[in-house]
């Protein structure tokens, strides 16, 4: 009989204590961020999709020598690049660099393995698109656009 | 069975070749090769000790499919790997009635390798769909098959491991 009543008092007390906590939390400031209006600063090391680094000294504004190391090493082969030989220019000239971001798992193999450190991660995290092709990024076009 | 040596002693009863292995190099303590017939006796012996079944995994070798059982001990560090050759008709006795945990592991190994576990409670596919029963994905093609020697560790002096030792 004794624990019958003991249970009521301990139980009741624990219920009250629980409610006091939520009451205290009720009057505390809000923690969440209203995403479309307020945006959190993204850390510089954040891994968005890979981009070609802009390098103004180089004639072509990027350092890629289209050696296709990244294309070979990528685990989910989502890189498709092509280079061509132009006379009067030493080495290959990059003409196409398409990244299929739907298959990329952001493992960073391409960034590490690139002999001329031409690739890096962008801070882009808002990917919106209506079709799969919207996520096939053309990195070469992105680098050239940058200069405008 | 309180310590590793008493475990090795206990294995003398069922004649199994027990090979003590360097933990730092291999990650487990004892490597045991068994015949399919001794498997149930081996499992019953381990059941008496404080052992639990860690996993059951298949291995497709040139000489046929091998099933390896890994047991570990809750009390003292003794992780043992028992390799069992598969019988002629590609089957091995089940230990699902001794270690019930083996039920799912064996079903999964059957999914991937097609090893039949004799008188297993219900040997239906577990991870693969019902109609993919004979897919057996982990079986290797002829040319990539290796035999037991091909995958066993040759002594480091004979063939220096290509990895560069960290010379800090």
């Amino acid at each position: 009989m004794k624990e019958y009543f003991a249970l009521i008092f301990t139980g009741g007390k624990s219920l009250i204590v629980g409610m006091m906590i939520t009451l205290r939390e009720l009057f505390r400031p809000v923690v969440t961020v209203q995403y479309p209006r307020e945006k959190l600063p993204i850390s510089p090391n954040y891994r968005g999709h890979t981009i070609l680094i802009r390098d103004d000294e180089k004639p072509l504004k990027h350092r890629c020598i289209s050696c296709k190391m990244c294309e070979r090493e990528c685990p989910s082969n989502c890189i498709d690049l092509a280079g061509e030989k132009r006379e009067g220019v030493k080495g290959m000239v990059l003409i196409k660099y398409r990244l299929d971001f739907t298959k990329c798992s952001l493992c960073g193999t391409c960034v590490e393995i690139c002999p001329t450190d031409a690739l890096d991660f962008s801070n882009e995290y808002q990917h919106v698109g209506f079709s799969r092709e919207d996520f096939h990024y053309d990195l070469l076009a992105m680098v050239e656009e940058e200069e405008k | 069975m309180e310590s590793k040596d008493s475990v090795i002693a206990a294995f003398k009863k069922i004649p199994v070749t027990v090979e003590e292995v360097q933990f730092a190099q291999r990650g487990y303590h004892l490597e045991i090769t068994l015949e399919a017939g001794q498997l149930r006796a081996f499992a019953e012996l381990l059941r008496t000790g404080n052992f639990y079944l860690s996993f059951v995994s298949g291995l497709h070798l040139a000489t046929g499919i091998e099933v390896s059982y890994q047991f570990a001990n809750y009390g003292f560090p003794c992780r043992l790997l028992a390799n069992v050759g598969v019988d002629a008709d590609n089957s091995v006795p089940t230990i699902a009635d001794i270690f019930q945990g083996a039920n799912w592991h064996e079903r999964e190994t059957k999914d991937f390798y097609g090893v039949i576990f004799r008188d297993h409670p219900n040997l239906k596919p577990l991870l693969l769909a019902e109609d993919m029963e004979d897919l057996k994905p982990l079986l290797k093609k002829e040319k990539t098959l290796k035999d037991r020697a091909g995958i066993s560790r040759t002594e480091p002096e004979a063939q220096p491991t290509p990895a560069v030792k960290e010379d800090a």
Partner: protein
Amino acid sequence: MSAVMNTGFLPPELLRIIFAVVCAIVIVFGNAVVMGYLERKLAGRFQRRPGPMEVGFHGILQLAVDGVKLVGKQLIVPKQTDKVLYRLAPIISFAPAIMPLVVIPFSPKLQGRDFDVGLIFILAVVAINVLAILIAGWSSNNKYSLLGAMRSVAQNVAYEIPMLLTLLSVILVTGTFSLRGIVEAQSGGAWFIFLMPVAFLIFFAATLAETNRAPFDLPEAESELTAGFMTEFSGMGFSLFFMAEYTYMFIACSLTVILFLGGWSGPPLPYGEYTSALWFFAKVYALLLTMIWIRWTFPRVRFDQLLNFCWKYLVPFSLVHLLVTAVVLKL
């Protein structure tokens, strides 16, 4: 109302009743909107998030937009359901919710019609909701809804008893079932909550269970029965259940206020006859906020614990309480 107006062909009493019913409907829908909004806002605030902010200032129009969405949704009637009962269930659940509001005395003047058996009338009407839930659960031909419906029947039947017993101890004191009579009995500031706090707690717990709220919300237990008896309802069916639940909460809280917190009595206000309804609404909404507060703090009780709590704790205590009040009255 007092002066005899030329009401043409309608007798004044009928006009008064029609006006009361219209007010009741306005209160039902107004309460559903306000409660829906309060529930989301407070739920957010309890969880340190702002709650709806998108539509209107601080999400004021959120409920209106939800209403439009629910009304706009296509009424999907699953194939093997019992067509008639499936459409009838939400109506049976929502229709009786309006009737008690005619009887509840918001203030000395603002009351639809005062029955001298007002309390029994309300309890009878509220009991219909159990039937509606059972019909909904059975007719939607879904195992989860049937489970939810079975649970709610057992729960409502079980918690009816402590509710009635605590009511009886109040009636013993007031001697009348008429709600106005009960409130007038407490007018001198001697609210029954001070005389019988235990009865108040038991009654409040029982109302929580009656309206399937907070720790006793087993009929629509999200994590076990997906949405309990409401699983197969979408669009207007779901919104009718949704509004019915809030109306029953409103009725339950107003009953608690009338019985224990002295109805409309409170410090005098200008035009006391009408404006004391503000005290009534203030107390009711205070209780409603506590219901929301309880909902967002406690986990759900298991089904057998729910019944044990009722039979082993609430019923004996309310019986003893009834006995004690009877003895005290006799002295």
